[in-house]
């Protein structure tokens, strides 16, 4: 999968994450349905990085410490935290459960788990973002900043007088 596709997908996932983590902006119904849809985004993200995950998993026990191992630990924790948020969210949901006709007898513990795992997801997401900072910067420079700068410069070059470059 190309870096450009990865970047577009990651920006989309991050935007959805921002919307989902602030239910006040969407309202409860959209918050719940968007969270359910987020499972698809999570699966797609893992699918796009399958080779990287598989390589890391193979090399995990080879070296005692390297940055990829830290990446893998953070990513695994993020995965578990996200699943906890989604599971607890579905269990304490009102709109989704009602729409699907589910009568989920979730204990009060799930409400706390939803809050705690959402906080953990935010922190781990930030760590995930930070650990891939170099990739983020280089991809954004290449596919967002450079084309934008090119767009700004091109009209300026067109409007410049013919003899100006001499």
């Amino acid at each position, binding site marked *: 999968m190309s870096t450009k596709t990865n970047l577009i997908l990651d920006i989309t996932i991050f935007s959805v994450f921002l919307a989902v983590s*602030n239910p006040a902006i969407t309202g409860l119904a959209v*918050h719940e349905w968007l969270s359910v849809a987020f499972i698809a985004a999570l699966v797609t993200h893992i699918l796009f990085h399958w080779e990287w995950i598989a390589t890391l998993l193979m090399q995990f026990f080879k070296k005692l410490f390297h940055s990829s191992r830290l990446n893998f630990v953070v990513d695994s924790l993020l995965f578990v935290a996200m699943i906890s948020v989604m599971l607890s969210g579905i269990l304490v949901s009102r709109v989704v459960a009602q729409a699907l006709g589910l009568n989920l007898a979730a204990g*009060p513990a799930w409400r706390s788990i939803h809050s705690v795992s*959402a906080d953990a997801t*935010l922190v781990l997401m*930030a760590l995930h973002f930070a650990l891939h900072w170099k990739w983020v910067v280089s991809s954004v420079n290449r596919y967002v900043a450079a084309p934008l700068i090119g767009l700004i410069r091109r009209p300026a070059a067109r409007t410049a007088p013919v003899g100006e470059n001499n």
Partner: protein
Amino acid sequence: MIKIVFRIIVILLVIALVTAGLYFLVQNNSSNIGLSSERQFNPQQTQDGSRPAARGNFRGGDHEFENGASLLRGLGGMLVTLFQIAIITLIVVQLQKILGRSRRLARS
């Protein structure tokens, strides 16, 4: 194509396993400490067992959004989230830089 389908199945299986593990862990622990009876401990539950009207408590806050979305409050929350992510990213990136420099110095 088969490879992708296989990978999707593996991912979904892992999600299902983690979900099942978490569910049984929480259910067992909450029943051990006597929290399984939600009606006894959750004053929000109504008499007929149904859940009360929507009330948001995402991320531990007491945000009331039962009357629908609030753009201003939502945008504020979004900015706070972005700020938190930015702070953590900044700290980690700086730490990585310091570690990188100290490693280079140790090598030379």
